[in-house]
């Protein structure tokens, strides 16, 4: 805990990352890879002499797509890193030390991707007449770089789930080429194509300008891509989820539904099935060139596809369990080895927390409790209010109960890290949480009887 501990008020840390990461995944997969691949395919069809409307469609889609990718996609991507770096510097710093080279090479691919994209963007109108073959080559060059970038980063993401033999062998190869690497790459690419074809169909159904036959051919092509991409995504998702630790995967319904929906066992599988069927229906409607039906289906299909992306990312984050780096660091940035040592020695943890600040007028005990809370629980739990507030979670529990529960978090919720600190600090933490959960009773003036407080 060498670095300042940050807790985003209200939203909480996890939700803050999600708000940035989910749009990034939708854009980086669905637009930067999915939509642009299909645009390049259109341009290739035009080059192959399959009709001038393919070129026109590609050109019309290029501008908005480039704006979205460069303005929102790229910034939210760097944003994930900026946010996680501020929220979990020990975790991000460790990952970067371990994976410097893949990250650095990925940066090269990312730069190449952007250069290809800018080359397309600035030279399209010139090349389309004088050197259409080069234009197509630039397009596929972009797609190649985009895929390379997705492949390179997947090793790091996969490591955070399935570190393979890394915790024992401590070798880079074990960490990077881990069991979920390949299925995750395929899943992300196929998911991106699914999203991309959805976007293209939606655009073609609503905004296409030209003959109805031309619109029909665009719809048919996108509608043909979607079921295939979905099938590949489904198969790779199955392989992917069969390789993640089942310890945490069995909790997926709680992960997605939270305690609010965890008691409705069939709700989430049903919602997922409806979502997939709707997206598939949209693809079939497009394949059979039903523009009017596509216009109706596109809104729920796109909303559901975003929800599926969010759900997948949520589950992926959740099945990491209580670890930030499995076998090395807990989600609260405490090293596994640090916790093991503390357990044996009952060593106090507060001296390791460098940045402790309390509110003015707060007792020393509360300040200490607050710091212990921030270090142990703050990564996932808000304090008095906000997302996953500990005041709600501990409501109704007496202080002795809170103290007992702190000692068994790992068993009670296997996705929670254990408490790190001495016995005395555990009491301070219990006291702090108890006071958060049992704020001062509202004081009523004697004269104000009968009025609402």
């Amino acid at each position: 805990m060498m670095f300042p501990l940050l807790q985003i008020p209200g939203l909480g840390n996890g939700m803050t990352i999600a708000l940035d990461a989910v749009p990034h995944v939708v854009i980086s997969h669905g637009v930067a890879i999915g939509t642009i691949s299909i645009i390049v395919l259109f341009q290739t069809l035009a080059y192959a002499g399959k009709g001038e409307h393919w070129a026109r469609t590609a050109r019309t889609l290029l501008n908005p797509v480039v704006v979205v990718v460069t303005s929102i996609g790229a910034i939210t991507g760097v944003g994930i890193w900026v946010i996680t770096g501020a929220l979990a510097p020990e975790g991000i710093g460790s990952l970067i030390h371990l994976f410097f080279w893949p990250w650095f090479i990925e940066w090269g691919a990312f730069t190449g991707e952007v250069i290809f994209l800018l080359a397309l963007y600035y030279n399209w109108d010139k090349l389309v007449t004088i050197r259409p073959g080069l234009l197509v080559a630039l397009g596929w060059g972009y797609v190649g770089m985009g895929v390379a970038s997705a492949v390179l980063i997947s090793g790091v993401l996969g490591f955070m789930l399935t570190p393979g033999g890394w915790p024992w062998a401590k070798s880079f190869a074990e960490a990077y080429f881990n069991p979920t690497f390949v299925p995750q790459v395929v899943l992300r690419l196929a998911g991106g194509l699914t999203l991309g074809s959805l976007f293209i169909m939606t655009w073609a159904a609503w905004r296409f300008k030209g003959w109805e036959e031309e619109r029909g051919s665009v719809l048919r092509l996108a509608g043909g891509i979607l079921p295939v991409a979905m099938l590949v995504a489904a198969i790779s998702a199955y392989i992917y989820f069969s390789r993640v630790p089942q310890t945490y995967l069995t909790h997926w319904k709680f992960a997605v539904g939270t305690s609010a929906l965890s008691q409705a066992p069939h709700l989430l599988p049903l919602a997922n099935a409806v979502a997939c069927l709707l997206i598939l229906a949209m693809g079939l409607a497009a394949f059979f060139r039903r523009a009017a039906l596509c216009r109706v289906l596109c809104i729920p299909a796109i909303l559901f596809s975003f929800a599926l992306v969010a759900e997948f990312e949520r589950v992926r984050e959740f099945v990491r369990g209580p670890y930030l780096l499995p076998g090395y660091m807990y989600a609260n940035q405490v090293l596994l080895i640090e916790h093991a040592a503390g357990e044996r020695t009952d060593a106090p943890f507060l001296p390791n927390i460098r940045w402790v600040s309390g509110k003015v007028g707060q007792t020393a005990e509360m300040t200490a409790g607050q710091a212990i809370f921030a270090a142990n629980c703050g990564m996932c739990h808000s304090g008095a209010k906000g997302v996953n507030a500990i005041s709600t979670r501990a409501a109704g529990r007496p202080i002795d109960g809170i103290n007992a529960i702190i000692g068994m978090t790992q068993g009670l919720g296997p996705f929670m890290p254990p408490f790190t600190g001495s016995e005395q600090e555990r009491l301070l933490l219990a006291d702090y949480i108890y006071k958060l959960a049992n704020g001062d009773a509202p004081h009523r003036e004697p004269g104000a009887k009968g009025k609402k407080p």
Partner: protein
Amino acid sequence: MSGWTDLFTVLPLPENWLRALLFVSFGLHMLFALLTVGTTLLGMLFLVYDRFHGLPAERDMRSHLGLRTLLVVLGVAPLLIIQVRYPHAFFTATGLFAYGWLALIPLIIISFLLLDGLRHTERNHHSRLTLTYGIISAALLLTVPAVFTGVLTLMERQEAWPVFGASGFGVNGALALHWLLRYLHVIGASCLFGAAFLLLFAKGEEQGKVPRLRNWLFGAVLAQIVIGIPLLFTVAKDMNWAMLWVVTLGAAAAMALLWIMRPGAAWPDAAVPRGLLVLLPLIFVAMLASRQMLQDRAVMPVEEQAVLARKERAAALQPYQQQALQSFSEKLATVYDNGETIYVQACAACHGGGGQGDGPAAVRLMVPAEELSAIRADREYIYGILKDGTPGTAMPYFRHYDREKLDLLLDWLSETFGMFDASPAAGDKHGDRAQAATVWAATCATCHGADGGISDFGRTLRPSPPDFRRFSLTPERAMDVITAGYPGTVMQPFRALPENLRRDLAGMANSFRSPDKKKTQ
């Protein structure tokens, strides 16, 4: 091997290589940063100027998208290298500056989107909207370097961290002055390089802008010198000779540039003086090199100290490696897909392996954990307790398990403890039944209700008493509770009552649970 105990101590490259990589990648990033901010700022200033002078607003914002995208992409590499080369100063500074640092993301996105919207409005000739978009996006874009210079200023001043940590944005005078000058210096450099970029790439009808851009370039160089001198004084104590030489070189190049650009100098109509192409890179490299030297001098000692502390800690922790990995393996092998695992992991700590309420954590509890093996109750009632917990006791809610998991647990409780079996029959009459009923009505019913349901008063208690219409205990356990009370609750010991009466009361407590429900269990 000890390097892996703390990953911060593992370097992917020797320090000199990292320094060289950082210098090059940061230079590329800064180049595009200056060009993006500079061309945007000048573009907006010209836009406002033209509008108020009734001139046709014709500018080319087309380069903006390319510049800013490269700026973002090229920012990734230095960020990566900084986080390896001096993570301690960097993460501390961004942590202390966190909200400003995080605000960068929406700021940049909105600014970029507005600039794209601006191109759209321009094409459609919404001049007022163009102006509004332009001013807002330029203003947002101008805050970005303020955050970056703020973070770097803080990063290089370890002595300011505790103050900053304790009082947030409260910055002392010296730090604020340096920050302000540094920010202005970046904005000045943006104008300088932005104007130079537009000059070098101005073509066609934009040639009319050349005199205006020349003036801006001249003014910007002059401003940089004026801002640079006090800025140099704010870092005087950290300078060394090497750095001084480099700054002098850059300053000399700036002077030469001033001379070339001086108003009234001979200026070829179409071409740009070749000197610019030599002097501008020279100034850029010299200024960045001196910046890097200053930063290294301030930050590297912090880093070395931190890494040393980490290495010491890693050595001390090393003996616990096996133990940590052992518990990690065990954890991965524990899958909550059966009732027994759930019970052992989540319940046994308090309720004990045999359901006797004697788990290791139970000793901490004021209200003892219930003896689960003694419970005879309705399944739905127990499910309700699992779902909502028992307020006033340590029994938490278990909605963090989905319904299927709770059903597995309930199945296991049923198989192991017979928890949902029929309530034991009241058995033989021990004493005077009528007397027991009187005592129940007079005393027990206060909380437990006349019909075994919880009375209104009982509902106000934390914990509330159990609902005997759906919950009962084995006669032995019920007898224990009546005799000894339930510690930590208002259930007091009734040792003083005759034993037969207590037995009858225990029988009564068991008699409320509906018999047909008992059969269905």
